[in-house]
């Protein structure tokens, strides 16, 4: 056999991945072969692949179960590692780990995004001494992720299991997209849970995609299949610069999707009645530009990337339709991570406030709502990207603070004409201040008294009074809000501030 034939035979074998039975097993589950995934992910195909021949002298370990290299998405370079689950279930041997570490180091040197296409059973126990404990063992992968965090975007597409230590790869990414039915994340498998702690549970209940995207918050986006996950990743990256050193790219400006009701008609006069905040967002952003993150998790706060006249903007909006738009520990965490994500990559922030405050009661106090809320305030306060807060209807109590109220150096705090800003709403305030007096009154006189005091209170917190006191920077007509935001974000583009000088804060977590 000539040298060339040897090369071609070997290369062909490696490119084909593991045994046919594993390919078939994957197809049955709707899983693509790793090289098909990459073809779909990149504009063309992978441009550069390193260590294709890794472990080629061993039997049955093509590329040592992982593809690493560089390709282009939306015309921009990205580094990628992608497990091949047809090779020993995508498990990690010594060379698998070394390949992942090297591609991360490349992403760091080149200042380009790093993508992790995960589909792996975890460590190869038989190789543990070579791949687990040492300086360039698997721990280094996580160390590198932590180092890359905030320098370049890190995206995880979870196509299969991400088990035990491997579950930390998604944990350290900016965003985790999980494919429904196939993706899972867990430290100990259901079998282990039964053996060690006696719990009987299914994989889906314990670590499935739906659970993580709606309950634990470890997943950000639930995709119905692999191609939807890949399409999402391509769209997501279009909002981001290559690294923290650059500004996000602008796109062509598009009008918002057509709508029937105006913003004014959309927002109920009764402060306590719910309305759907998605409808307001839709009227402010370029058509089809809203890219929601953590849709199923803590829905009382909406977070998503968007474009306003072509410029990427990260939106945080209270959703009165869900839990009254009240902030809970989970929604505060969701906000903190999203703010950090946008701030790290120079994406301006928009806060749309319609918030009665943070939740009260035993349950949330025991869950540590104070420290979770503090986490949100820290992240919001430290964010130095252009930030605008808009009081859509109401901002009560610490809700005003959490949604980038005036004290937290937003570049502007704007209000719609119907907005209310106060320590608490009129009903609660009158009850708090006049409780004894109300009690003392004959029952038939109470409603009139309460109404009168509520009206007095409303006058006291009138939005024109707050504008007169310069609490807010401007009152904006609802139908002009989009235009106002666009012109302000353009003006604030040259903002250049350092929050403060120090090594780092001691964060409430």
């Amino acid at each position, binding site marked *: 056999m000539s040298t060339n034939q040897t090369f071609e035979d070997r290369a062909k074998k490696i490119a084909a991945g593991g045994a046919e039975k594993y390919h078939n097993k994957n197809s049955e589950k709707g899983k693509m072969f790793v090289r098909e995934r990459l073809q779909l992910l990149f504009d063309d195909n992978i441009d550069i692949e390193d260590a294709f021949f890794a472990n080629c002298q061993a039997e049955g370990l093509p590329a040592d179960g992982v593809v690493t290299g560089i390709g282009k998405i939306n015309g921009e370079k990205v580094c990628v590692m992608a497990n091949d689950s047809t090779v020993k279930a995508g498990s990690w041997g010594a060379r698998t780990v070394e390949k992942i570490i090297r591609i991360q180091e490349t992403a760091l040197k080149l200042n380009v995004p790093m993508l992790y296409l995960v589909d792996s059973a975890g460590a190869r126990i038989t190789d543990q001494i070579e791949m687990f404990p040492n300086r360039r063992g698997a721990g280094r992968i996580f160390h590198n992720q932590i180092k890359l965090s905030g320098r370049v975007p890190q995206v995880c597409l979870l196509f299969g299991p991400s088990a035990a230590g491997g579950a930390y790869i998604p944990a350290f990414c900016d965003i985790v997209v999980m494919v429904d039915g196939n993706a899972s994340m867990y430290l100990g498998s259901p079998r282990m849970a039964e053996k060690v702690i006696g719990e009987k549970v299914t994989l889906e209940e314990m670590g499935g995609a739906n659970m993580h995207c709606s309950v634990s918050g470890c997943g950000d986006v639930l995709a119905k299949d692999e191609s939807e996950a890949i399409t999402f990743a391509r769209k997501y990256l279009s909002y981001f610069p290559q690294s923290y050193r650059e500004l996000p790219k602008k796109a062509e400006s598009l009008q918002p999707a057509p709508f029937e009701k105006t913003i004014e008609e959309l927002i109920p006069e009764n402060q*306590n009645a719910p309305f759907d905040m998605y409808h307001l967002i839709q009227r402010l952003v370029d058509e089809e530009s809203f890219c929601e993150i953590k849709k199923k998790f803590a829905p009382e706060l909406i977070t998503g990337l968007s474009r306003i006249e072509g410029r990427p903007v990260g939106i945080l909006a209270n959703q009165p339709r869900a839990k*009254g738009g009240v902030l809970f520990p989970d929604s505060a965490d969701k906000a903190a991570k999203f703010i950090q994500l946008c701030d790290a990559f120079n994406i301006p922030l928009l806060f749309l406030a319609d918030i009665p405050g943070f939740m009260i009661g035993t349950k949330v106090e025991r869950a540590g709502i104070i420290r979770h809320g503090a986490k949100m305030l820290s992240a919001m306060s430290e964010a130095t990207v252009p930030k605008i807060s808009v009081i859509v209807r109401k901002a009560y109590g610490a809700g005003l603070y959490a949604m980038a109220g005036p004290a937290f150096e937003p570049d502007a705090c704007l209000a719609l004409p119907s907005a209310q800003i106060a320590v608490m709403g009129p009903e609660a305030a009158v009850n708090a201040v006049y409780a004894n007096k109300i009690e003392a009154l004959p029952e038939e006189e109470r409603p009139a008294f309460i109404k009168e005091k509520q009206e007095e209170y409303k006058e006291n917190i009138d939005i024109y009074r707050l504008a007169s006191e310069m609490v807010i920077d401007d009152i904006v007509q609802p139908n002009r809000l989009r235009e106002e935001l666009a012109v302000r974000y353009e003006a604030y583009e040259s903002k250049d501030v350092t929050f403060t000088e120090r090594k780092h804060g001691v964060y409430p977590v």
Partner: protein
Amino acid sequence: MTEIKASMAGSVWKLVASEGDEISDGQDIAILESMKMEIPIPAESSGTVKEIKVNEGDFVNEGDVIAIIE
């Protein structure tokens, strides 16, 4: 059969569906009052309201069952 649960602690302000009603996914079953806000509790699947487990004015905790849809 699906259980429709309270999304947060509060009191039942209004029941907007009755036992035997045909309802569709996303349609409100009840409205709670909590934090001075009206909190709609929508059905998460279409079907018939088999049972309503609460009365107007009742206090419910997060996770308490409000109705059963079949």
